[in-house]
């Protein structure tokens, strides 16, 4: 019983510790990729309007997903 309780506490701690690391890592990778993609779209002639549209779609999708992750983390 006590072992199970310890394991349970450890599991809660591990998940609680891992979540922010994954969250922050994903945001960093997401932002770095945004810069790289934006550079490619602008430099290689996608066109300003299209490049802006692609970036908007990328950011909206990313922000929604990051938002869902943040809510999940906060409600954990």
């Amino acid at each position, binding site marked *: 019983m006590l072992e*199970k309780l310890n*394991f*349970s506490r450890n*599991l*809660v701690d591990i*998940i609680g510790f891992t*979540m922010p690391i*994954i*969250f922050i890592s*994903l945001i960093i*990778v*997401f932002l770095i*990729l945004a810069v*790289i*993609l934006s550079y*490619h*779209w602008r*430099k*290689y*002639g*996608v066109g300003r309007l299209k490049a802006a549209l*692609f970036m908007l779609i*990328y950011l909206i*999708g*990313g922000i929604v*997903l*990051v938002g*869902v*992750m943040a*809510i*999940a*983390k906060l*409600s*954990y």
Partner: protein
Amino acid sequence: MIDLHPKEEIILTVRRHWLIFIGEISALIIAFFLPIFFVVFSGYIHEAGVQYLSFSEITSTLIFISAAWISVLWMIFFVIFTDYYLDVLVITNQRIIDIEQAGLFARDIATAPLENIEDIKIEILGVMATAFNFGNLHLQTAGSDKEILIRGIKNPEFVKKLIMSTYQRETALSQNSK
């Protein structure tokens, strides 16, 4: 951006067929639906995990994992899309430019003047390629052993005809001007 020569005009810009793109992201599409297993088996997962974590903790963890998973797929999708979108064949009135984007940090640009093109071969292989009219375009150029190969191009027959007609028109124009 492509640096064009003086009096050079872009006649056609063509990409690979969208079905090729769908094929490239098919693994992502399958992977996208994996979190649905969490929903389908949520009863079992909660049952198994409830002795260690509370109901809300399990739910939050599953939602977090799903969102993180889809975020990664979202980023991979844009890398593949960029690769697809920047792979382009440009036909101008002077030459053919084949731009091949390999991932985010490699880019191969092959150029062949129209007068150097000796042979154009198209390949339409398979049911899907026939039904959706896409295929490979082989350009054999003079003075080079290496042919230019453009895979999965939209409407290859039209592209072949366009290259040939452009070459004929430009040759006639240059002869008239002499």
